[in-house]
């Protein structure tokens, strides 16, 4: 009880300090584009990168290296989930019989599953044109697989194929970076032509990278789900 109240008081003090500092010194919604690097992104982004979606321009082109790192973080985290679950072992007994999903759900999943995959692919293929990108598209693809798992109790992904896909697309990303280094002397340099902004085939290396990220994220999140589902069986 005492511990809890001390913690609460500390949190309250911290909250007040942070709140007032932020409210006084970092006014919300101020126009600060002139002070930092953001004006370059905003005013030259489309010309520099050829991507009409500026968020993508920053995420994949200006700061593409961070994105390579984030993809690695997700990759490592997916492996880590596998490691923890592998060591936790299988809790013995208590194997509940799974109820088969009804006919309606099964039929619906047959029709909806490809549509969901298509939607995910749409999001990451159009990442440089419209809101969205590899991470979002990948998450949608993983949701599609989650749906498949729910609707069909016997469904399983093929681990080897998923691992192979994952590593091939991951290597694609790294290779694009290394190719940039070999061709121009800068890692992850945009060595393809920018094209005209707004078209599907534009923005240089961004579509390649986003397709790779989308597939990779989808495969990894599905892998996490699969690990969670399978630990008991």
């Amino acid at each position: 009880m005492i511990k809890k109240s001390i913690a609460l008081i500390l949190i309250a003090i911290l909250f007040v300090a942070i709140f007032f500092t932020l409210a006084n010194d970092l006014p919300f919604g101020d126009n600060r584009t002139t002070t930092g690097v953001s004006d370059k992104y905003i005013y030259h982004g489309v010309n520099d990168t050829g991507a009409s979606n500026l968020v993508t321009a920053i995420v994949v082109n200006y700061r593409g290296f961070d994105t390579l790192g984030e993809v690695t973080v997700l990759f490592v985290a997916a492996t880590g989930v596998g490691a923890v679950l592998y060591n936790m072992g299988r809790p013995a007994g208590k194997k509940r019989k799974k109820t088969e999903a009804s006919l309606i759900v099964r039929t619906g999943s047959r029709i909806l599953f490809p549509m969901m995959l298509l939607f995910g692919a749409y999001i990451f293929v159009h990442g440089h044109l419209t809101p969205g990108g590899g991470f979002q598209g990948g998450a949608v693809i993983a949701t599609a697989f989650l749906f498949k798992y729910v609707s069909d109790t016997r469904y399983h992904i093929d681990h080897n194929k998923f691992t192979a896909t994952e590593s091939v697309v991951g290597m694609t990303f790294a290779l694009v970076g290394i190719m940039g280094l070999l061709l121009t002397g800068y890692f992850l340099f945009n060595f393809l032509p920018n094209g005209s902004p707004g078209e599907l085939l534009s923005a240089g290396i961004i579509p390649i990278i986003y397709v790779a990220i989308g597939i990779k994220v989808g495969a990894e999140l599905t892998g996490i789900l699969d690990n969670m589902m399978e630990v008991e069986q």
Partner: protein
Amino acid sequence: MILTIAVAILILMMMVFAVYSVETKDLLYAVVGTMAVSLIVSILFYVLQAPDVAMAEAAIGAGISTAVFVIAIKKTERYEHD
């Protein structure tokens, strides 16, 4: 003005859900609480003109991670002990 009030209400709701999901002993309800937080956050991102982030938050925060939590709770225990 209306937008500001709406945002304020959303933030307030978010805080309520967050506190609820920390405090409740039923982990399934806590997961629902975090899902609600994610949903509100994604609406807020949309209002603040970051649709990319809003999509990611909706798909990952409210979709996948909720599923992962629910599966984890199903495999372990539903109620928290002291």
